[in-house]
């Protein structure tokens, strides 16, 4: 595999650090785990020129934190979020396991 195949920038380290979306996504993932939300369940993917952050979190406060951290960490890269807050209601029916 070559740099041309992968489309990665940063041959020889020229643009390989802060501007590399792949590494920035990895750093965001690490930061979400490390910081106050301890969130391992987010899916973070590069799509076109944007980064999509999706998943389910326990509270609206957690969602706000994930969105804030994502924008901080990916500053300059457009971020789209699709984060659902877990539903705390009781189920409307059981599953019968006969």
């Amino acid at each position, binding site marked *: 595999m070559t740099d041309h195949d992968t489309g990665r920038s940063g041959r020889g380290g020229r643009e390989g650090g802060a501007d590399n979306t792949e590494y920035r996504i990895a750093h965001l993932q690490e930061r979400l785990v490390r910081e106050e939300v301890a969130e391992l369940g987010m899916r973070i993917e590069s799509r076109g020129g944007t980064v999509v952050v999706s*998943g389910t979190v326990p*509270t609206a406060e957690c969602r706000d934190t994930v969105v804030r951290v994502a924008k901080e960490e990916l500053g300059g890269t457009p971020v789209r979020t699709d984060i659902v807050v877990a539903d705390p*209601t009781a189920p409307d029916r*059981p599953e019968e*396991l006969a």
Partner: protein
Amino acid sequence: MIRVAAVGDIHMGPDSRGVLRPAFETLPDRADLLLLAGDLTRHGTPEEMRVVAEEVADLRVPVIAVLGNHDHQDERPEEVTAVLRDAGVTVLEGGGTVVDVDGTRVGVAGTKGFGGGFAGRSGGEFGEPIMKEFIRYTRRRADGLRASLEELDRRGCAVRIALTHFSPVPDTLAGEPLEIYPFLGSYLLAEAVDSAGADLAVHGHAHAGTEHGLTSGGVRVRNVAQPVIRRAFAVYHLESGTERGTGALAGASR
């Protein structure tokens, strides 16, 4: 009929105090027991676990839990376990408990479990000490699960349930990236369930997975991570071995 309520991965913290309580208070009308499949907190602190304890205290149904990896993050598993036990929760790690439901003995065997991957695509006890320990750690938890299920059989349980945090099967991981499957569960847990026999296996951990799965021995598996079931809990109705007339499922691959 046995009514089993279950949920995992509720990831509670101070900002979620009281969120699940209204749904949990409906449990006596819906279920005979509540299983908590780990990752009850975010960082495994006693403060967070006290929020969980308040949610499940005095529910009038037995509450049985295993811890998850998040509940170990603060490296105080004994303390957070004690917080749950003080609230009346039975916390299992390599042990079992029996609940009497209208004269039917229902056994629950529990362990957090661990990763390693699934048959044909798993890590092995080979090479560096840390790699060997990774798999041995999982194997010890699987061995504890098997021994507990066998003990529940000897104690005359008509229904036996395996409760883990990590997944015993890949089926319920569908939706997760394939690359992370080895961190989501281990076939050693399924092998333990199939060799000892069980009527149901319940786990959490895989937020992007799916609810329904089956071990290769035919035991039904349910991923009850809250992001998967999209409710405060799921309820499963199980027939006891006597009601089934054979008990064949429980011993299908013993």
